[in-house]
């Protein structure tokens, strides 16, 4: 049952950039396929595509003759034959007991309770864990045990295909050896195949049957280890680097040794070197094949264009360069003007100014929309709710005793629009200012509150940390909801979560954000930020210049206009 991937492209949401660009290949069963590429080359997205975790923007994926997607839905028949092991699988655990973890993973398969118990015992043992662990809380296990429990839950669904994302990241060498042994054993027993993304080429190249090399979302090579052995330059071109063992074999070949095009054990290789040295096969190396060492600090072309684009937005936009205090000031003036409104005319003007400012600042509209979207949903809901009236009152329309008052609803809508506009402006404010500058300017402009014994620095530090953690929380939410989708084996294109999946999302999310937070606090301390209120200097000297005064003037003009329209 090979996988056929035909002209698959995936776009980054709302941006025109391609994460995967027109991929076509065939992945054989009964084989181990490695996906290599430097960070950001699209490896993880490729695994998501194969396991149906994200929808395709273009192209198709077939398992033999079965399509992975049927219209907007993933083909459950195919899905049940797939198993995913995610990076740091130990972080996905959430249930009260180990056996509950298995129950959750096995629920989509509709198997009996006895069978769940049986598989739990069996797969715990397979991974070298005591079956008695089944009734323990997963959180009381060691990190290594947790990882094995998570692996066992995936194996217990008895998938034909196994997709693994960096399975040995963070493991010590003996743990790595165990994982590799288990994967080789699994390969012998399974009818499907295995797709592995990894940086650990030293350990995985020797067991690979096939290698896919990705670079900037494109499939730049599709080859066997033998071909890679003959010409490893592709690994350098794709900025991955050559693993130590392969490097040695190439070197031996350059010295004139006859080396087979596959990996050898240390013993065999040593004997080969001894025999061929005795036969006088090797020669003094004369011409050194030029193998460029790419230092990471030199930046690839694709990255350069990205950087150029990003710097351009910063340079061209005046709003980025304004004094942060002025930005706050203008924001406050707008807020006063907007809240004073009693007619829609003023709000329309404020709305236009906001849109104009977003356009002028070149912050992509979707960035603002992401944060405002939930608010707009809330707004619609409140609009409808506040219009509902009971009893026989003369209204716009009514059924029996329930009616809808458009006027009342409009009033709510009006008030909420004010907050909506301010939210849009607030998002713009935070996305045109770095978090450290934000902290500095808050401290600066609120410093007078110090005399009232208000902890200004703590406040501004909290604001900075909150802002810094919003993207982290979004990213982690995405990561864990992906894991849930893979475990429950059923979802639509615009997947929604059931109530019963909430613990599986929230518990790992909370734990991981707390852990990141604690790492961050340790790092802050390590970098010298040891207590609030300590003496510090600052590298930004805030001073007002002409453009700041102009911006302030603009704020005052807008305020007067808004007040006049009131």
């Amino acid at each position, binding site marked *: 049952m090979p996988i056929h991937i035909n002209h698959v492209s995936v776009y980054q949401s709302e941006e025109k950039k391609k994460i995967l660009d027109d991929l076509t290949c065939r992945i054989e069963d009964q084989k181990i396929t490695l996906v290599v590429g430097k960070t950001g080359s699209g490896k993880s997205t490729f695994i998501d595509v194969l396991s149906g975790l994200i929808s395709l923007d273009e192209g198709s994926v077939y398992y033999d003759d079965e399509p992975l997607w049927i219209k907007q839905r993933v083909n459950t028949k195919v899905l049940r034959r797939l198993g995913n092991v995610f990076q740091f699988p130990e972080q996905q655990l959430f249930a009260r007991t180990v056996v509950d973890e298995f129950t959750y993973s096995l629920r989509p398969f509709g198997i009996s309770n006895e069978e769940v118990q049986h598989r739990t015992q069996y797969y715990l043992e397979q991974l070298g864990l005591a079956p008695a662990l089944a009734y323990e809380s997963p959180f009381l296990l060691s990190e290594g045990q947790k990882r094995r429990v998570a692996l066992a839950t995936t194996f217990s669904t008895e998938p034909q295909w196994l997709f693994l994302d960096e399975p040995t990241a963070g493991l010590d060498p003996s743990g790595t050896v165990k994982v590799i042994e288990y994967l080789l054993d699994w390969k012998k027993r399974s009818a499907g195949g295995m797709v592995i993304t990894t940086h650990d080429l030293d350990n995985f190249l020797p067991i690979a049957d096939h290698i896919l090399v990705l670079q900037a979302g494109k499939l730049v090579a599709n080859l066997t280890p033998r071909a890679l052995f003959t010409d490893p330059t592709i690994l350098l071109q794709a900025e991955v680097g050559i693993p130590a063992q392969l490097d040695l074999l190439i070197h031996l070949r350059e010295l004139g040794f006859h080396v087979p095009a596959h990996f050898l054990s240390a013993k065999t290789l040593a004997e080969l070197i001894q025999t061929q040295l005795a036969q006088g096969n090797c020669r003094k190396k004369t011409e050194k094949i030029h193998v460029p060492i790419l230092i990471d600090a030199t930046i690839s072309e694709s990255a350069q264009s990205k950087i150029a684009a990003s710097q351009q937005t910063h340079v061209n936009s005046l709003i980025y360069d304004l004094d942060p205090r002025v930005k706050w000031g203008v924001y406050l003036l707008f807020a006063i003007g907007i809240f004073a409104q009693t007619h829609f005319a003023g709000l329309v003007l404020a709305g236009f100014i906001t849109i104009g400012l977003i356009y002028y600042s070149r912050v992509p509209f979707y960035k603002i929309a992401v944060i405002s979207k939930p608010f707009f949903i809330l707004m619609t809901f409140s609009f409808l709710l506040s219009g509902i009236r009971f009893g026989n009152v003369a209204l716009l329309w009514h059924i029996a005793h329930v009616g809808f008052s458009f006027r009342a609803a409009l009033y709510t809508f009006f008030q909420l629009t004010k907050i909506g506009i301010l939210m849009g402006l607030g998002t713009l404010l935070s996305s045109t200012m770095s978090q450290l500058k934000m902290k500095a300017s808050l401290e600066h402009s609120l410093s007078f509150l110090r005399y009232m014994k208000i902890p200004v620095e703590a406040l501004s530090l909290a604001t900075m940390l909150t802002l810094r953690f919003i993207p982290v929380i979004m990213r982690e939410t995405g990561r864990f909801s992906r894991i849930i989708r893979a475990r429950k084996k059923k979802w639509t294109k615009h997947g929604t979560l059931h109530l019963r999946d909430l613990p599986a999302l929230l518990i790992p999310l909370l734990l991981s954000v707390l852990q990141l937070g604690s*790492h961050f606090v340790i790092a802050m301390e390590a970098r010298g930020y040891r207590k609030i209120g300590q003496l510090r200097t600052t590298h930004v000297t805030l001073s007002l210049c002409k453009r700041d005064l102009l911006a302030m003037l603009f704020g005052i003009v807008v305020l007067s206009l808004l007040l006049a329209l009131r």
Partner: protein
Amino acid sequence: MQELLVLHHVTVAYTTMDGIKPVIRDLSLKIKEGEAIALIGQNGCGKSTLAHILSGLTPISRGTLKINPSIQNNIQIVFQNPDAQIIGDTVYEDVCFGLENYCVDPKDIPIRALRALSAVGLRSAANRPVEFLSGGQKQLLCIADALALDAQVIIFDEVTAMLDPLSRKAILQMVNHLLNRGKTVLWITQLLEEVGHFARVLALQSGELVFDGTPEDFFFSDHIPENTPCSKLGFVPPFSVQLAHQLLQLGVLSDERPILMTALKDAVEKQCQSI
């Protein structure tokens, strides 16, 4: 060389539900100026805790830590996950954050920040948003953060664990460069081949220091591979060392003790030339 850090019978323990759990047990250690030290050990053996003790982030339960007054405040640590330690939005801003915390005169901040960025090759990227850096470049930025503060001792806590081979190479090149400049480095790693870049190896097991010596002794003190400290302590030697042992047994190599693959390559090439 003068002693910079001296740990004397140090124990660190935490109170858990099951009683007191020691993470570091009765550990004594001296680190001298300019030393290149690799620290190895299995997951959960206390490597990170030791790094935190040396950088003053974890209090000691028993024993003493003496820090040479000449390096007070000059011990910096680089962590595994750069996203959890970079605070600035741009490269330059991040280097400044540390300088501000140590109350460096605002006049001196630009020169110190830019000099540190030059040292790691990120000078031209000073105004770049951090989100556009690769994993390896983020780690280089963290090294620059340490250099800006004139760090004399730099501790690296598994910084190459999540990097691709090429970025890993770049970071190790940078560390070699730092050692040449006289810095003291403590390099924590799971990848035993990296030990070959250092002059001294420390191995931890369940919070105890079980080996303190040269990498050559660690991998080659006995001609039977199973009897070396490396194997006896349950570590898997890297492929280069496994191959070197086989070549020593076959008599292809005689007195070389190569640990890095490049050293092994050179040793074999020398044999070719001697024919």
